């Protein structure tokens, strides 16, 4: 019956049915019964383990007792926090920097510098499928809880070490952060407004991706390797695996053909602002009017911007009909080959910005929509969070969080029709699941747990 309905309905309806966010909890999880350990801090390692947790693995985050990992103390402008930090510190909060990399996890606080702590970690490792770790290379090995020790306890364990420069090679002792990865890996060099005299209206320096890209996306790359290793283990080899991921390397992987272009032709790619090196028209156009002129928030009072995309010859011809200012260059740049040259781009976008001078981004968007030309205004996180689209698709959601109440959280990055990922809670206080985890994985009773608490092990 249901099958027949699915076949008869329109494609849109079909998608809304199979990806229905309201039905997510009625469907099975991809990794029911799997266990993951997250001995991680900051974002790179935590985000990797978080993707496991979304897919249904019971993910145990092991932090140091009381204050937890450093990211708990990081929040924009030091303003918003979620309370309590831990049972012992109800008046301290966890910063929003902790958002996005710790959903669904169980929080165990263990001081693994101490032998009792090492014992706890070993007992959990014995029953674990996959572990993400991002301490300095060799640290866990020295403490006796690294891959080499864990593999003896549990040869099926998949162990992902993630970090800055990797554990071997000339830079192995260097510390790394997200923006260092971005800087050293090369993503800065091609992002941002060009230097002076390049024919671009805005001038600037090489820029970072403002999100912690090398961390969060690096976590995804680690996650892929981990899921592939699980598939290989469960279907083919039966054995665990050690994976090393360097975020600085990740940043060189993502800069496209920049490396081959240099090594063969000596071309050092530079930044090209809000336009596109390879397509034209396909750039962000500065509008003249702000969308919220009366706003007290300075950002909202700035004039808006919109991407206008008409890269193919037919699209461009249509665009020239819509934007009168383009008529002068319409025939000159009718062909893609001519249009994509830097000088042409400069002329075309200048004419378009002239046209958009007396318009808001919404007005331009409306005109483009009416004429079926691809476009997308530059939205702030406020505008974005008001889109029904993203809420409907569960890409952003209000979570009724069992610990913190009403929080707006990022949702799911991918939709699976049969075994969707899901978010249950954003995170929990430090050591919130001590009893549950120690009982389930270590076989400790209440007295033992109280003893460990007394001795500052947990």
């Amino acid at each position, binding site marked *: 019956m249901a099958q027949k309905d699915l076949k008869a309905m329109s494609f849109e309806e079909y998608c809304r049915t199979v990806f229905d966010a309201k039905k997510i909890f009625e469907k099975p999880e991809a990794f029911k019964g799997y266990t993951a350990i997250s001995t991680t801090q900051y974002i790179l390692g935590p985000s990797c383990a978080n993707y496991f947790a979304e897919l249904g693995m019971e993910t145990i985050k092991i932090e140091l007792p009381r204050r937890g990992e450093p990211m708990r103390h990081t929040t924009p402008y030091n*303003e918003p926090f979620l*309370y309590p930090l831990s049972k012992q510190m109800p*008046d301290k909060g966890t910063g929003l920097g902790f958002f996005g990399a710790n959903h669904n996890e169980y929080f165990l606080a263990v001081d693994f510098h101490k032998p009792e702590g090492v014992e706890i970690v070993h007992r959990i490792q014995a029953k674990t499928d996959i572990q993400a770790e991002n301490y300095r290379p060799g640290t866990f090995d020295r403490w006796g809880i690294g891959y080499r020790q864990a593999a003896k306890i549990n040869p099926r364990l998949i162990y992902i070490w993630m970090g800055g420069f990797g554990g071997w090679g000339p830079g192995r002792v260097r510390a790394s952060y997200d923006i260092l990865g971005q800087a050293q890996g090369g993503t800065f060099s091609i992002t941002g407004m060009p230097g*002076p005299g390049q024919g671009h209206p805005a001038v600037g320096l090489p820029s970072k991706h403002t999100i912690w890209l090398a961390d969060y996306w690096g976590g995804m790359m680690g996650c892929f390797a981990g899921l592939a290793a699980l598939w290989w283990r469960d279907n083919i080899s039966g054995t665990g695996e050690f994976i090393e991921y360097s975020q600085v390397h990740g940043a060189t992987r993502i800069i496209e053909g920049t490396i081959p272009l240099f090594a063969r032709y000596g071309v050092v790619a530079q930044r090209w602002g809000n336009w596109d090196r390879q397509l034209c028209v396909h750039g962000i156009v500065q509008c003249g009017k702000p969308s919220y002129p009366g706003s007290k928030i*300075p950002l909202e009072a700035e004039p808006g911007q919109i991407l206008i995309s008409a890269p193919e010859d037919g699209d461009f011809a249509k665009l020239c009909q819509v934007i009168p200012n383009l008529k002068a260059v319409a025939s000159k740049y009718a062909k893609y080959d001519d249009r994509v040259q830097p000088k042409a781009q400069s002329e075309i976008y200048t004419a378009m910005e002239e046209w958009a001078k007396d318009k808001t981004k919404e007005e331009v968007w409306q005109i483009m929509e009416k004429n079926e030309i691809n476009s997308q205004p530059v939205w702030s996180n406020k505008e974005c969070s008001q889109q029904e689209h993203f809420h409907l698709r569960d890409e952003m959601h209000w979570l009724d969080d069992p610990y*913190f*109440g009403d929080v707006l959280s990022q949702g799911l990055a991918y939709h699976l029709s049969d075994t969707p990922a899901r978010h249950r809670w954003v995170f929990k*206080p430090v050591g919130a699941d001590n009893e549950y985890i120690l009982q389930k994985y270590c076989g400790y009773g209440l007295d033992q747990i109280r003893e460990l608490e007394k001795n500052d092990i947990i």
Partner: protein
Amino acid sequence: MADFKHCSLLLECGKCEIVNYLDPFTFWFFDGKVKCAGCGAIWRVKIDNGARVSGPTEDKAPHDKLPGFAQSKDYKTKITDTTKVNPPVMARADFVGKPIPIYKSIRGKPVSGGPLKAEDLVGSRPRFIMEGRHK
């Protein structure tokens, strides 16, 4: 107290001795007039790749740019008046820059965004959430 006479980006006003911070993003390449946040004197400086190549020499209004921030050398006067220095980058109009207690989300439902006391907790959860008062 430090001497900033030979600094490029820390411009010590020759008149009022206020230190004007010429932030690197605005002033790294700069040839023009900057207005002292302390006394309003106009200084012409030329900064090339972060290094001051000429100036400061006094000049006439109008100025080209305001400094990013300014304070006295003894830290007692801090100038953050946005008519005298560049405006801060704000996330909200009423942004304060220190921990703020938040008990309601923007759609008006309770959220645990403020300090709690031990008696506010049940285990490690805020009592009001345990009791379902946030619904």
